[in-house]
């Protein structure tokens, strides 16, 4: 029972990070019908920017309690600029090109960013300074520490904030209108280029937060960390129904749980033949299963409605 509870907690924490990243995929897909495969790298750049600025700030003697939010804000800001530039340079010129073209530039951007990060930050793993005391709490035999609590609560807060922006503000209304019908939205005076840019910026800011969360949780950052994380978040978006915001959040949390429970029990179930190091298998098994059995995802609409 303790193991079960522990895996649920781990799964929810990890899943909330997947959800934040999945939102970035799903927002862009909802509006452009494009899968932004560079999104995982934005997560990585966010983590790296936060790490560098944090190290610098601490070096100048700024107190950790001020340095942390400052460096997170810097990472978000940097990623917003990055997200804006990616769209402007790699996707906008190809907006009316066949759909394969922007997919390929997406992969290109992803490789460029990885290599850029490798040149700037090197190939080694960086340890993320631990600024928040761990203070493990015991809940019914399972352990949750302060960082995990902060990650989960912060992630939920950002998701709630996004939902308010999308459902309750003029900007959100314009985003939904552009997602439904770009041409009609344009006729109503909506500046679709602006809406698309802002969508990329919001998604990138969420990615930066997620990057900081992952690094803080594991205490590590690495130039390659965005790749697998990006793929998993993409899986989460597909699981929930790509293009659907609630779906991305649900898919993220579910994927976190599946992975965590799977990793926790795979050893017992296979008599020790597979260990918890096979954790990644579950995410991609889910991806394949969803694509085969329910391509529109859990909350997705039938694709025909978009066409």
């Amino acid at each position: 029972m303790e193991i079960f509870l522990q895996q649920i907690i781990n799964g929810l924490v990890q899943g909330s990070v997947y959800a934040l990243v999945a939102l970035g995929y799903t927002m862009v897909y909802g509006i452009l019908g494009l899968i932004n495969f560079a999104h995982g790298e934005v997560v990585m750049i966010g983590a790296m920017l936060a790490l560098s600025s944090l190290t610098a700030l601490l070096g100048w003697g700024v107190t950790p309690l001020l340095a942390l939010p400052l460096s997170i804000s810097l990472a978000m800001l940097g990623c917003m600029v990055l997200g804006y530039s990616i769209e402007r340079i790699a996707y906008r010129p190809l907006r009316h090109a066949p759909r394969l073209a922007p997919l390929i530039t997406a992969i290109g951007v992803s490789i460029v960013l990885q290599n850029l990060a490798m040149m700037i930050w090197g190939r080694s793993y960086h340890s993320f300074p631990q600024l928040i005391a761990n203070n493990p709490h015991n809940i019914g035999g399972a352990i949750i520490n302060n960082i995990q609590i902060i990650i989960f609560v912060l992630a939920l807060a950002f998701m709630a904030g996004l939902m308010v922006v999308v459902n309750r503000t003029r900007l959100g209304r314009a985003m939904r209108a552009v997602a439904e019908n770009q041409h009609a939205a344009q006729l109503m005076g909506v500046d679709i280029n602006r809406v698309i840019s802002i969508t990329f910026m919001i998604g990138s800011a969420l990615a930066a937060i997620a990057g900081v969360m992952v690094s803080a949780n594991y205490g590590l950052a690495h130039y390659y960390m965005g790749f697998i994380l990006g793929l998993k978040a993409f899986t989460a978006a597909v699981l929930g129904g790509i293009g659907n915001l609630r779906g991305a959040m649900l898919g993220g949390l579910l994927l976190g749980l599946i992975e965590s429970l799977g990793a926790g029990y795979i050893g017992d179930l296979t008599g020790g033949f597979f260990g918890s190091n096979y954790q990644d298998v579950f995410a991609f098994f889910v991806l394949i299963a969803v694509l085969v059995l329910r391509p529109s995802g859990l909350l997705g609409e039938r694709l025909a409605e978009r066409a």
Partner: protein
Amino acid sequence: MPHTEDALLLASHIGKQFGGLSALDDVSLHIRRGEIYGLIGPNGAGKTTLFNVITGLYQPSAGGFQFNGMHYESGKPHLLAQAGIARTFQNIRLFANLTALENVMIGRHVRTRAGVFGALLRDRGTRKEEHAITVRARELLRYVGIEKPAQTLAKHLSYGEQRRLEIARALATEPLLLALDEPAAGMNASETENLKTLLKTIRTSGVTVLLIEHDVKLIMGLCDRVAVLDYGKKIAEGAPEEVRKDPAVIAAYLGGGGD
């Protein structure tokens, strides 16, 4: 020749070619302020093409436009909305997953200016503008007669309601010219009658209306002036009673056999 001073829209020598096919050939017309102007013709006569050129969806191959005394360039739909042309579509193009109210509120975007940071920070000016937008959108829904389902998603409205919503959304942009592409298509007799009343009200409010319609009876009962297209050429123009008697028009409709 037309009195150009009271013309809201002046189209001169418009031509449009699709590949080798000539869809419009030297069409000139003028729409006066405050009238309901009808555009009719047999199937494939070029009505929708002309309509799309006027509303900026297509670039004409030849000729040019003057709207509200200024030249305008076709092919830039968002600028046309600003200039004061709003349109509806033959196949309804609402934002299906937005509520009726939100659909109309989107139409206000062209006339309001709150920026991104306003949207995120919700300062007083933005909230005030949002409030004004909501009030105006509700007024427009009432104006076209669908205030009750304001919070219903557009896709769940009845067909007639969707047509009305599209008109409300177009009116939200405060157009000088409201261009309607077959608004009565698929409507039953009572819905058509209501539409007629609505369009008359709209004209009374000072908005000029351009109407493409298949339903010749509707056009004849509603329009101040009518142009008839056949094979991409304007074959007649004038008051409905005159046009109805025009031998070229009779030949086009009977000889065409389309309708």
